[in-house]
């Protein structure tokens, strides 16, 4: 009962925080403390829930999602939508990822001088929306949470960003809106076919094959928009480069995972026949992400553009795992979602810290930063190493699992793309090492006095991400086993 209430609290608490922060004075330090405390409560409860899920999930693969702590209430009776939330292995891990990124995101805006109240308020609504996405198992409720971010994303980026912020913000918001419109249309189609929005019930009903054939690509690409799959990747560099640090961390760390999560949880789970027909063709798009992404990143000089293209290539790996359709590849994709969330969070956090000191993100105008701010430099390098798959960090585990899993798929196209993807890791290594070299080593361009020392909250952010990356890199097995309990039902649906 306690866990059940805790689960409901996850998305209600951010809203309550916004409500109670209205009377607090704009510049009072209590404002950010209050928001941080609330995010801390959510973080602790999500970790507690993860531990509970660890203890209560049977790790033997079964064909049913093991949903814990369900709450099921009547909601909109006219369209028989229910308020139906619960938690299983995959969603509990995504929740912890989201909670860590939200918590550190609030820390990253600790020194924001103007408009803190509005920023933190909208940021909490973003938080509520992602927590809601990961726990809702009713399609209407899922969509409500999924689309809620459009409300805040534009104002956060255009109001607090840097560079070409209005353009970037509009591009991001509208492209994501195209994706969610496609999702909504297919959800309505599913409802018209079956008369229910309940994900668990729907997984037991086989949707008509003719419907799956034309609905699957719309749904899959709709989700893929927010994960920046090839023809829809263009929002990501523009949006990330304009966004403030916390929003970049959030967008790359959690929001882009929502799309991949939806592809796995809803598109492939509900429409296995459509997936079998279409995913081999979608491999072409995925190949662009995985192979061309790193090469574009190599040519860029702006740190945020480099990281955005690196995210595009890493998300391509998630899609490679999904498209390979073997249990091992699915597991790798799920691990990559979490691992990439941490590493990209660390990337954008350190970039934000560097930018706040150098006031430029152009790597050719930096140098020798390791002498002035070694702590942040090391954090950046660790994120880079995790990104290029250094063993011992989480990136290696996830990427290796994906590659082995996708090589298990006997189709020649899939194998060729896997091989190319493995080779493209070299390109990743090139741009990350080149970037680290230019930025951190060599003579100091900006004098040391102008570069303030690393602040305590910045140290905390870096350390917490590094710990997560190492835990997932050294002890991946328990997490992988746990994830299997969510992934196996999806695979069983595919081979049904």
């Amino acid at each position, binding site marked *: 009962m306690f866990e059940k209430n805790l689960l409901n609290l996850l998305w209600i608490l951010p809203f309550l925080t916004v409500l109670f922060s209205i009377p607090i004075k704009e510049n009072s330090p209590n404002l950010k403390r209050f928001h941080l405390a609330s995010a801390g409560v959510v973080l602790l409860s999500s970790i507690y829930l993860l531990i509970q899920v660890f203890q209560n999930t049977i790790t033997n693969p079964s064909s049913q999602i093991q949903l814990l702590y369900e709450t099921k209430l009547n909601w909109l009776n006219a369209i028989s939508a229910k308020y139906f939330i619960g938690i299983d292995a995959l969603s509990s891990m995504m929740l912890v990822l989201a909670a860590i990124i939200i918590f550190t995101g609030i820390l990253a805006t600790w020194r924001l001088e103007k408009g803190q109240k509005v920023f933190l308020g909208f940021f909490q609504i973003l938080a509520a929306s992602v927590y809601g996405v990961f726990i809702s198992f009713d399609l209407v409720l899922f969509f*409500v949470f999924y689309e809620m971010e459009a409300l805040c994303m534009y104002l956060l980026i255009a109001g607090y960003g840097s560079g070409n912020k209005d353009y970037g913000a509009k591009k991001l918001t509208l492209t994501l809106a195209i994706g969610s419109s496609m999702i909504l249309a297919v959800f*309505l189609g599913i409802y018209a076919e079956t008369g229910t929005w309940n994900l668990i019930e729907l997984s037991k009903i086989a949707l008509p094959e003719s419907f799956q054939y034309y609905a699957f690509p719309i749904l899959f690409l709709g989700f893929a928009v927010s994960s920046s799959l090839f023809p829809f990747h263009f929002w990501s560099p523009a949006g990330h480069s304009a966004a403030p640090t916390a929003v970049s961390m959030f967008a790359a760390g959690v929001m882009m995972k929502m799309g991949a999560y939806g592809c796995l949880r809803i598109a492939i789970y509900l429409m296995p026949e459509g997936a079998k027909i279409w995913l081999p063709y979608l491999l072409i798009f995925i190949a662009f992400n995985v192979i061309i992404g790193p090469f574009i990143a190599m040519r860029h000089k702006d740190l945020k553009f480099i990281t955005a293209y690196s995210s595009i290539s890493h998300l391509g790996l998630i899609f490679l795992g999904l498209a390979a359709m073997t249990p091992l590849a699915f597991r790798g994709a799920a691990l990559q979602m979490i691992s990439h969330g941490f590493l990209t969070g660390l990337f954008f956090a350190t970039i934000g810290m560097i930018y706040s000191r150098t006031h430029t993100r152009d790597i050719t105008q930096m140098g020798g930063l390791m002498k002035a701010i070694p702590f942040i430099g090391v954090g950046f390098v660790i994120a880079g190493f995790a990104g290029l798959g250094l063993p011992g960090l989480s990136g290696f585990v996830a990427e290796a699992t994906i590659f082995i899993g996708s090589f298990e798929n006997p189709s020649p196209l899939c194998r060729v793309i896997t091989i190319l993807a493995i080779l493209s890791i070299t390109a990743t290594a090139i741009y990350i090492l080149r970037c680290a070299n230019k930025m951190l080593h060599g003579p100091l361009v900006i004098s040391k006095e102008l570069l303030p020392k690393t602040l305590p909250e910045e140290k905390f952010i870096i350390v917490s991400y590094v710990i997560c990356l190492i835990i997932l890199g050294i002890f991946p097995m328990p997490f992988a086993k746990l994830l299997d309990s969510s992934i196996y039902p999806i695979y069983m649906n595919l081979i049904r």
Partner: protein
Amino acid sequence: MITIFPDILILLFPFVMLSLKLFLKVSLKTQENFAVGYFLVVFVTLNFILLGQNHFYLSNWKIDSFGIFMREIFVLSSLLAISLSHNYFNSSVSLKPKLLNFSEFSASVGFAAFGGIVVVSANDLLTLFIGLELATIPMYALVAWNKRDSEGTEAAIKFILTGSVATAFELFGFSYLYGFSGFITFPEITNAVATAQVSPLLWISLLFIISGIGFKMTLFPFHLWAPDIYEGAPTPVTAILSVTSKAVAITFLTVLVLGPLHSVQKEISPFLALLAGATLFVGNLGALSQSKLRRFMAFSSISQAGYILIALLGNTPNAKYSIVYYLFLYTFSNYLAFFIFSVVGKNQAETFSALRGLSEKNKFLAISLLIALMSLAGIPPLAGFFGKLQIFTTAAENGHFFLILFAVLNNVLALYYYIQVLKSAWIDKPEKEIALSIPTKQKIIILILTLSVLLLGFLPFLSNNLSIAFL
């Protein structure tokens, strides 16, 4: 008797208002309070009517649950319009002279509301037509209420000319429908339509009826009058036009399409789908490049009309329920936007640049604006999204999958231009400092509307209570 009591109250309202001024000579303030109180009483009375059986009075005055909820919408809209007009009668607003003759103004609003009630209660063609005219003619006068304002007069003339042509179209269509069936009462027409083969006579009549009502509902090829008239009319009148007028028109179509023409609904639904798709697309395109707020709202409400029309593709109880539900939420969101525009435009023209720097001047207004516009754009968890979701589900049950895909993709266009407005309010810096003061009364109304838009969709209270009555 209780069922017809609110109708009598609304019919009496204009006469009471006029006599208050003529015989009792009460002050403007008392008149305003009285009008608002009167509509509040009617609204509350309407909530006490027991739903269930259809009631008939004099054989052609029908009261059913759809009718009662539409009455609530008409009354709500009039109530909000009268409270919105408060500023305009007490001082000059938006650089225009202040309005005069409140009692006649509110009497016209009352007549328009009664017209809507006649339309929804009609059980024959003649009553239906009288209702539509009763709802339209006061609008002509209301648009030109500011008689010293040349823009308003121009708008009214345009409105009368196009409106009368539309009326002629409708009457012509009705005459063919009468010629086809031999009756003007709905039960007989229903029988005639159901038994006869689909004949060219019926098609011609439908073509003219839909064209005629298309004018009033601002459907695609007949929408061109709307922007000029919305811009020329005083803001409270624009608000009534965009809510009451549109609600009357959709009620008219609902009464016909889901009533006597029900057996040909399948045949005309491709036509309706085309109209709906074109309307919302054209409305959205038009709104993209506007810089004046009321003109912008005209295009926005054209596209909303397209969305409402989608509901008519559904089956009977669901379609009526979706229309009522959508209109409720639309009324709240639209009036909220107009209330904010009227506050912002108090000392300057109502343009996008008037909104600049609103978030710095007044956070409360800026957040209300965000909520109103995002609700109109259909972003969850705000009310507008749930209205649209309901309409799409209704249409999806009859398999209009690609129309829905088109409509939801259009939402992206809509989101773009609503974001343009939000950009002025939240991102742009103010050109010159103009102090903003909100009267307490307005502040309370804006707060109530904001909370309604925020909560009425997500909390299932409204939706479930309505659905009990319909389904």
